[in-house]
């Protein structure tokens, strides 16, 4: 049993070894022993057999020491050195008490120290509660006693020596007493706190077992079975809680003693008419517990405000020896603080949110853990909500880094982990805004977009204005050109044409003279014909260039005119199948001229090769193609079209091709030839 306890103490006192023990200086204040007892020598630091506090075994005695400086509640270790000259010079039975009296004295209010561990290099501790009893034969014995001090401010220690019926004669010698403060190594604030039970516990059980930091010690009611039983832990002052951890103690024969629990928190001493601030009733009622089960209860699991000084642990069922509890641990909320944000080694001003300038490459965060007793350092973790949301372990330096965080809203969170390895519910939460570079700002983008649109619009407007101006200029130029064409055409026609015409008339006048020789008359005839030809050719050329004739109607009229004026003198009948009206379409001078030349070539071919007496001219408009058919009643196309005729057809084709048209010649079923001109307008 003893070994087991020590083993458990070692396991439970996690981290104890990590921190060095702090010696607490003791000063001798007063003792009930005589002045010759050398009371002060118990704390003079000299370890020699002749040096020590002589305490007669025949009567009860007490000695009071002052702690310098005063000590906070926590773990404490006393080392009793019994190095007296004779054998077994130890106290047979003694006890340790503490006080918070500013001037500790024998009359002060003393509270017994709850021992959690003991050991001796010679002899052994027979029992530790309520008093320590030492047994065995020793010459130089060092006794180590560990305990938990529940008072906040320990100013003095009292050692009491008791008289045993079987007391050895003579005096015990306390060669030296040392006191050390042991690191807490835990954030459990219930450790060492006073516990009371409403009813009697099983034999040898003490309510303090619930807060002794030892899982091996447990307590349960004996006799009372109903829910009226409770344990009550006094946490010494009102506290804000993070969570409560309950450790059970399973026994193979009784697996239901750690179920159906109820917790109540009070900020006043519980009693009738004192309402609980917070209550938790275990939901898993009726189940059996697992061996070594741990219940972690957080504020949200119960109802009310999760704070108070007195914690009551009871049950909701009537089962004997229930609740059977090994340990009650209470954890206050611990939240990292003082967030510093470093942007590329520059500390950013605090804010809500913290504004991170754009384009920061390296972002560092440093938090500080609130100071805990004995320099306890807790594990920490952090995360950035909005960037993975995953908790990441924080290094002990407290500086964590993030790289290349894109612009946006984030929430920095940091948490600590309590000594029971539960994460604190509350976390440090600091919103973080990583600012976008100005060009990523929506307004800036909008402005840029508007500006771009504006510039484009301006350019387009300018461009279109220029183009319009250019078009206008072009139109004016083309109109000017058109007017110029018309003027040249009219001038040529009126002036040159009139002169040529006059020439033909003059020729007639000349020819009337009778004195002319035959040869002269013939030459004159030739002159007249040439003049008339010239007028005709001029007429054609002028017709083509004159912009007034740039219409489909005029082209049609002129083709009819050309055909009739060419064919009539040759006594070839001309029949015309021509629409009365034509759509308003423009036909440029070049097109009209080329087409007219091809058409006249077609007429010539008819006259030269067809031997026709009637020609039918068919005009029609198959939008957008002007179709002109020249049908004759002649001999048709020869089998192998070649020679002159072929050349003629080739010429016509080439002329039409120049203006995008085609020319097809074919023999008609009823005899004769059709030459079909197709000209897209």
């Amino acid at each position, binding site marked *: 049993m003893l070994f087991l306890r020590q083993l458990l103490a070692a396991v439970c006192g996690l981290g104890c070894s990590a921190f060095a023990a702090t010696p607490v200086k003791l000063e001798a204040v007063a003792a009930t022993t005589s002045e010759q007892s050398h009371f002060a020598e118990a704390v003079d630091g000299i370890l020699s057999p002749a040096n020590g506090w002589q305490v007669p075994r025949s009567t009860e005695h007490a000695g009071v020491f002052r702690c310098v400086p005063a000590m906070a509640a926590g773990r404490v270790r006393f080392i009793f050195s019994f190095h007296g000259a004779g054998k077994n010079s130890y106290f047979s039975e003694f006890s340790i008490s503490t006080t918070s009296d500013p001037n500790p004295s024998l009359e002060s209010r003393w509270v017994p120290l709850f021992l959690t561990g003991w050991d001796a290099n010679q002899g052994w501790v027979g029992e530790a509660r309520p008093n320590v009893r030492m047994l065995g034969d020793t010459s130089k014995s060092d006794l180590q006693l560990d305990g938990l001090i529940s008072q906040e401010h320990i100013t003095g220690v009292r050692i009491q020596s008791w008289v045993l019926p079987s007391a050895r004669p003579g005096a015990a010698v306390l060669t030296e007493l040392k006191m050390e403060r042991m690191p807490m190594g835990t954030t459990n604030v219930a450790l060492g706190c006073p516990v009371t039970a409403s009813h009697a516990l099983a034999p040898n059980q003490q309510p303090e077992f619930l807060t002794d930091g030892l899982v091996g010690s447990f307590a349960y009611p004996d006799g009372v079975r109903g829910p009226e039983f409770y344990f009550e832990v006094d946490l010494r002052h009102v506290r804000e809680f993070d969570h409560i951890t309950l450790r059970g103690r399973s026994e193979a024969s009784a697996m239901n003693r750690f179920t159906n629990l109820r917790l109540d928190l009070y900020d006043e001493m519980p009693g009738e008419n004192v309402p609980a601030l917070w209550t938790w009733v275990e939901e898993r009622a009726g189940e059996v517990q697992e061996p070594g089960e741990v219940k972690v209860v957080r504020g949200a699991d119960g109802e009310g405000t999760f704070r108070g000084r007195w914690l009551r642990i009871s049950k909701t069922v009537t089962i004997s020896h229930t609740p059977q509890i090994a340990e009650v641990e209470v954890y206050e909320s611990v939240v990292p603080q003082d967030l510093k944000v470093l942007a590329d080694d520059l500390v950013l001003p605090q804010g809500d949110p913290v504004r991170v300038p754009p384009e920061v490459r390296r972002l560092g965060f440093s938090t500080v853990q609130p100071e805990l007793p004995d320099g306890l350092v807790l594990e920490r973790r952090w995360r950035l909500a909005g960037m993975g949301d995953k908790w990441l372990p924080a290094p002990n330096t407290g500086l964590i880094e993030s790289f290349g965080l894109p612009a946006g809203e984030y929430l920095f969170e940091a948490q600590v982990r309590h000594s029971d390895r539960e994460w604190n519910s509350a976390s440090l939460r600091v919103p973080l805004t990583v600012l976008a570079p100005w060009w990523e700002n929506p307004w800036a983008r909008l402005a840029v977009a508007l500006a771009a649109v504006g510039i484009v619009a301006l350019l387009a407007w300018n461009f279109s204005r220029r183009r319009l101006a250019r078009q206008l200029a072009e139109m004016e130029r083309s109109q000017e050109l058109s007017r110029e064409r018309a003027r040249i055409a009219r001038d040529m026609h009126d002036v040159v044409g009139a002169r040529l015409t006059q020439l033909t008339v003059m020729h007639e006048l000349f020819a009337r003279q009778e004195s002319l020789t035959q040869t002269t008359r013939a030459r004159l005839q030739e002159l007249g014909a040439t003049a008339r030809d010239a007028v005709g050719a001029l007429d054609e050329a002028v017709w083509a260039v004159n912009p007034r004739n740039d219409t489909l109607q005029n082209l049609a009229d002129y083709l*009819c005119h050309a055909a009739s004026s060419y064919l009539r003198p040759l006594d070839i009948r001309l029949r015309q199948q021509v629409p009365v009206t034509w759509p308003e379409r423009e036909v440029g001078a070049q097109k009209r001229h080329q087409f007219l030349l091809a058409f006249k070539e077609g007429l010539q071919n008819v006259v030269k090769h067809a031997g026709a007496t009637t020609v039918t001219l068919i005009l029609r408009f198959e939008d957008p193609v002007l179709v002109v058919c020249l049908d004759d009643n002649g001999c048709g196309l020869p089998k192998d079209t070649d020679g002159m005729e072929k050349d003629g057809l080739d010429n016509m084709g080439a002329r039409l091709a120049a203006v995008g048209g085609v020319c097809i010649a074919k023999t008609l079923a009823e005899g004769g030839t059709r030459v079909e001109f197709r000209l897209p307008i």
Partner: protein
Amino acid sequence: MPIRIAMIEDDQPFARTLQQYFELMPAVTCEAVFPSAEEALLGVPSLAPEVLLVDINLPQKSGIEFVDEIVQQCPGILCLMLTMYEESPLIFDALKAGACGYLLKRTPPQEIVTAIEEAKAGGSPMTPQIARRVVGFFQGEQPRPVAASPPDDTLALAEREREVLDLLTQGYLYKEIADSLQLSVHTVNTYVRRIYEKLQVRSRSQAVAKYRGFAE
């Protein structure tokens, strides 16, 4: 008895040459040459020639406008357009205005004399191109009833006239038309003359109607 004619021609050298030619011709006698429409409008009514040779392209008022005015001042006067232009729209406009025929300047002068004689005898030349314009005019203008002048049957083409016109559009010669309709060439000429008259009356009444339409 030679036919008394006058010329309205601004091209003096041409006019003089042609005048010299007419002097050789016993059939015609050219009594005056007016260089502009304005002078002609002053001189022609007192001179009262039988046939006028009118150039279209005159310095101020055009030959067509001149014809329009002179046929109203001197009803029965025969106007032959003598023009450099082959263009159908101009010729058609001249006919609408009251001309009874047209000649091209490059026509051999002998034929000009013949045309004058024909005109005097009641001949009315019409090419297929002109004929088509006449058809188009009567078709296109028909559906537009004119408020001021209620539809007048006398202004519509008679069936015979329509037949003649139809053959003309296809390029039939007067003689061929006369043969196919079993008429004399003279009658064909008369039909054509009537068509011209209707064309003129019609276009004039439409002009008046248009004017009134604007005035109201």
